[in-house]
């Protein structure tokens, strides 16, 4: 079955430290992978995507993600966290059959001053 897993419900990071939010996936065919962020009582905002090419993808607000085919992972990273990065982060993969997005359960990122 095609799926996305975000193994951490919550990640706590001190401001200025690097952050990683984990995502693993299972999908048939070539993976199309996405990260979105959701602020309280708001819709989702696109951060970045991997379709093909360089395994390190750069996105909005200084975020980047590393695609690892052998580990079927697509972890979100940022070198130096800001308090304003505190939000809910969702990983998604495009279903290889019906082309719809399958979403992880989300990871709450808390950046402490």
């Amino acid at each position, binding site marked *: 079955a095609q799926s996305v897993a975000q193994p951490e419900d919550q990640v706590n990071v001190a401001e200025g430290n690097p952050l990683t939010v984990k995502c693993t996936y299972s999908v048939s065919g070539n993976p199309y992978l996405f990260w979105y962020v959701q602020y309280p009582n708001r819709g989702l905002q696109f951060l970045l995507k991997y379709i093909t090419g360089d395994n390190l993808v750069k996105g909005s607000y200084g975020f980047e993600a590393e695609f690892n085919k052998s580990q079927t992972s697509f972890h979100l990273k940022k070198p130096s966290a800001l308090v304003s990065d505190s939000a809910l982060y969702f990983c998604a993969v495009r279903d290889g059959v019906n082309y719809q*997005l399958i979403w992880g359960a989300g990871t709450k990122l808390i950046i402490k001053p």
Partner: protein
Amino acid sequence: DAGVTQSPTHLIKTRGQHVTLRCSPISGHKSVSWYQQVLGQGPQFIFQYYEKEERGRGNFPDRFSARQFPNYSSELNVNALLLGDSALYLCASSSRDTNTGELFFGEGSRLTVL
């Protein structure tokens, strides 16, 4: 340009009632998708429409239906509401139907069923 707009933003219904949620996509976008987001979970795909044709349907009962109008706006209808239908309903628009690019989300319609 205006982003994706959804209405109403909040609504309260009782079990058995019917609800209609509305979405206006970004100008020029022909694809509209609907998602249900239950508190503490990721979005679940309900429908996608492109050029007024249904392009995908998620694992939801027939009580859920949708349509897209000639101006590409869309409605999601839910009949015979259940308590479990309480959720944030998100609409997303995009320029293509293949979900390889960015989806632009509205802020959602929060439905509470009592």
